[in-house]
């Protein structure tokens, strides 16, 4: 039985394996960053890291099956990332105007 991490038998190569591993690590770093960062802009930058990881996985799986569908999906990821950046930064600007700080802690009293 072959496994996703053991894709060598399929003719896709070690490159796919390494890219998938990097995708997992990058997604984790993005998630940890989202939790750890207190600057609202950088929190959204960390979601971009997670988008990046998803794109890497799509390209790797597309290469594995020699299917351009993975690459087409990355184009849609780019679209979503652009839309998300525009909206998130608009929101951040709005919040910054209210409290004159980018710290996400400034909004923590909403639930207290």
């Amino acid at each position: 039985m072959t496994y996703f991490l053991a894709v060598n038998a399929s003719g896709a190569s070690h490159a796919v394996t390494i890219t998938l591993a990097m995708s997992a690590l990058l997604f984790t770093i993005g998630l940890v960053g989202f939790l750890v960062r207190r600057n609202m802009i950088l929190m959204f930058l960390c979601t971009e890291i997670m988008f990046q990881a998803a794109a890497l996985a799509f390209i790797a799986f597309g290469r594995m099956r020699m299917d351009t569908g993975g690459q087409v999906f990355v184009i849609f990821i780019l679209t979503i990332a652009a839309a998300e950046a525009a909206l998130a930064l608009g929101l951040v600007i709005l919040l910054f105007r209210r409290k004159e700080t980018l710290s996400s802690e400034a909004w923590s009293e909403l639930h207290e």
Partner: protein
Amino acid sequence: MPLLPFYIASAVAAVGLLFILRPNKPALRRGGAVVALAGTGLFLSEALRLAGPPTADVPIALLIALVVIGLFAAVRVITHPRPVFAALYFIVTVVASAVIFLLLQAEFIAFALIIVYAGAILITYMFVLMLADQGPRDSIGHIDDDGDYDRVAREPMAAVLVGFILLGTLSAVVERIPNTAVLAQANLDEKVARQQVDALMMMPKHLLNVVKRTDAAAVSVTVPPNTAIQGSIVQTQVTRADGTVVNMAVDTAGKIDNTQMVGLDLVARYPASLELAGIILLMAMFGAVVLARRQIEFGEDEVRDAAGLGRIVLDVPDHERAAPGGRS
């Protein structure tokens, strides 16, 4: 237990990341970086061990170097005390993954990624970072106590724990799924050849250009229905400039490059998704405009001035003009 090495590697990397997240302790951070690097190396080597003997189609050393550079830059994004530098490090991550895309034969996406991410999205982030005044001050101009929010991590322990669990789950799921979708090399070659033939048949002008490379006198080319397709070779009928029609075998291998293939896929296989992406972008633009709009109250006269209309002058009778509250 095949997953144990992954769990150990995730734990080591998590501990390293935890130390990296400690501010103001350079020695601890350096040690944490070494530990995290060791964990990453363990993770990658375990994945490589599962993948079996190496193949020579991609320079593995270059790929691993790119992975390390990309991950290092990503860690700097989440740890750097200055936001602008964090955004710059993100560009490094983007460029590293773009080069990996190049190695995985996704050339169009690689350059689109650099143009859109590093060129457009990151510049937007930079604009907002510059726009939002750094170093928050209170009303008298002193730096707030809260001003270290870029240096001190929030709940690093819990965050790293969550990251460790996520990484362990990811490796478990990815390792466990029986991969029935894997195609043998012969099937893969056949699939690629078939894609090339199909794509070329959908692009008659491009097919004519391909034919013209071998027969400069060709003016039109048709692919008869039920034509014989053997591997990447397709039988076509070529009409030449002198009116004769000849049969010609066209080898489509390598005639369609990555950009043409992606473009064709985008409009031929996923047209509805393409339209949907356009609608999402439009809605995002509306949303951003509505969000960023500043509420400014205008009086009636300013509105009429802006619209190029004259001001309203009421024709008030004389006896009312003298009344209190009336216009003078």
